């Protein structure tokens, strides 16, 4: 993959600006710091009636998984205990309002793993989990991540300056995922544009899937065409083309935007705290705790949602069957019941699970790939860009967004 230069920087900027039309539907233009409101809400009660964006004071409509569903009652949880309990009870708090038929004709996220429940979810997840284990990180790094990271740095290393949010953070995950699916670099950006039109992505994937069925390679599509799914009756079947398309679309949707924004949040936190940046540069082992702390402190996806399958008394709220329960994991991650000085970005905290990658059976499948991208990416910046610092003449990065949070711009100088 030597053609990373073929990425159109302006197009990239448009697609990966939270305030652009592609991202504004998720509330990407929200500029207020929501954490003080969430703290107040959590102090009042662990569970409130209403959606997270309305309770936060977002002026318009914002969309995410679990929204809008105007005919259903909506509740939102803000404490760690309430969010964790809901994640761990998938019978009461289901991932989709109706059962999923993955073998139907329509490929899309609604037919994928993320929408499945119970035994069906377990069977499909088991099929792909081996490719996403921590032990597989080396495969992802050597196959796609490392080369991408260094080619991107090559493209700006001589300039003495860069805008890391788009020129670096945004490009790494999309090129990693498309690379693992066998999609060439020059088509990677079109995929991002097409995320809301699955039929177009299917058109691009179809010849790749057909080719891998003929002759498998060392990539993810090849794993999927060869995988055997144990059915409920004990027999096994190979995944259909539609099942593979749905999974690939899920990966593109869940994997291309989240790691971009989370990496930008981590870099923002470090660059705005030069003493921590210096410590991490001096002792690279601190990078692991830095990444985990940033995912706790400001997760890029502040909310996941569940569909309530039975009337339930839940942390002081009566939630009727059919409701949507929004789990504000960003608020849960700063619950003082679990963390001391929760608003502080402190990389020396004892390592402890947060809900930044979600929780329960549906905890993020790609989280170890995301960790690998962020570790290799930030590590390479520290290796290759001496004296990396924010550009004092440019606006300092701000973290914005309602349901997809990330940095505005990260203008840096080095050398």
């Amino acid at each position: 993959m030597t053609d990373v230069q073929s990425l159109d920087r302006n197009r990239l900027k448009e697609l990966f600006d939270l305030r652009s039309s592609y991202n504004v539907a998720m509330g990407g233009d929200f500029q207020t710091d929501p954490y003080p409101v969430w703290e107040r809400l959590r102090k009042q009660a662990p569970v409130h009636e209403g959606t997270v964006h309305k309770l936060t004071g977002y002026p318009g409509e914002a969309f995410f998984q679990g929204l809008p569903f105007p005919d259903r009652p909506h509740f939102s949880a803000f404490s760690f205990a309430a969010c964790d309990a809901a994640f761990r009870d998938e019978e009461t708090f289901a991932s989709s309002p109706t059962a999923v038929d993955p073998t139907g004709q329509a490929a899309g996220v609604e037919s994928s793993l993320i929408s499945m429940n119970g035994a069906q979810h377990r069977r499909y997840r088991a099929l792909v989990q081996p490719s996403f284990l921590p032990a597989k990180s080396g495969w992802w790094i050597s196959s796609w991540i490392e080369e991408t990271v260094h080619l991107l740095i090559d493209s700006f290393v001589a300039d003495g300056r860069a805008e890391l949010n788009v020129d670096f953070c945004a490009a790494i995950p999309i090129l990693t995922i498309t690379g693992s699916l066998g999609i060439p670099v020059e088509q990677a950006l079109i995929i991002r544009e097409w995320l809301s039109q699955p039929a177009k992505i299917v058109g691009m994937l179809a010849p790749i899937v057909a080719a891998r069925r003929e002759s498998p390679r060392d990539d993810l599509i090849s794993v999927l065409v060869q995988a055997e799914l144990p059915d409920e009756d004990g027999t096994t079947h190979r995944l259909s083309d539609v099942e593979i398309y749905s999974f690939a679309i899920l990966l593109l949707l869940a994997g291309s935007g989240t790691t971009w924004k989370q990496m930008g949040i981590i870099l923002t936190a470090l660059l705005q705290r030069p003493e921590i940046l210096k410590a991490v540069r001096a002792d690279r082992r601190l990078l692991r705790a830095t990444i985990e702390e940033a995912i706790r402190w400001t997760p890029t996806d502040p909310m996941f949602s569940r569909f309530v399958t039975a009337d339930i008394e839940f942390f002081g709220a009566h939630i009727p069957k059919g409701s949507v329960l929004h789990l504000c994991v960003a608020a849960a991650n700063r619950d003082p019941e679990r963390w001391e000085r929760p608003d502080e970005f402190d990389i020396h905290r004892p390592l402890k699970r947060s809900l930044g990658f979600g929780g329960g059976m549906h905890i993020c499948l790609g989280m170890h790939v995301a960790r690998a991208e962020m570790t290799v990416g930030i590590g390479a910046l520290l290796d290759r860009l001496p004296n990396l610092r924010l550009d004092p003449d440019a606006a300092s990065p701000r973290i914005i967004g309602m349901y997809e949070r990330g940095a505005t711009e990260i203008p840096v100088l080095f050398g």
Partner: protein
Amino acid sequence: MPGAGTATVTIDQSRCVGSGMCVVYAPATFDHDETAKVVVIDPHGDPLEVVESAVDACPTGALSIATADSPTPQKDEA
């Protein structure tokens, strides 16, 4: 706190989905087999408090730990 030598880690492969959270926290204790089910590679690989973090981190309650102070295996109680 007792050392890791006095604690026993128990795994329940039927609950494990292979999320890998345990390996994030206690990489010298846990790993996965080829079907992505958790295995203990070294029961004394990490300090006790690190193993406790891993037990708490398991999203499916597949791990439990019994120490000399609490002979009954405790499911994660986060």
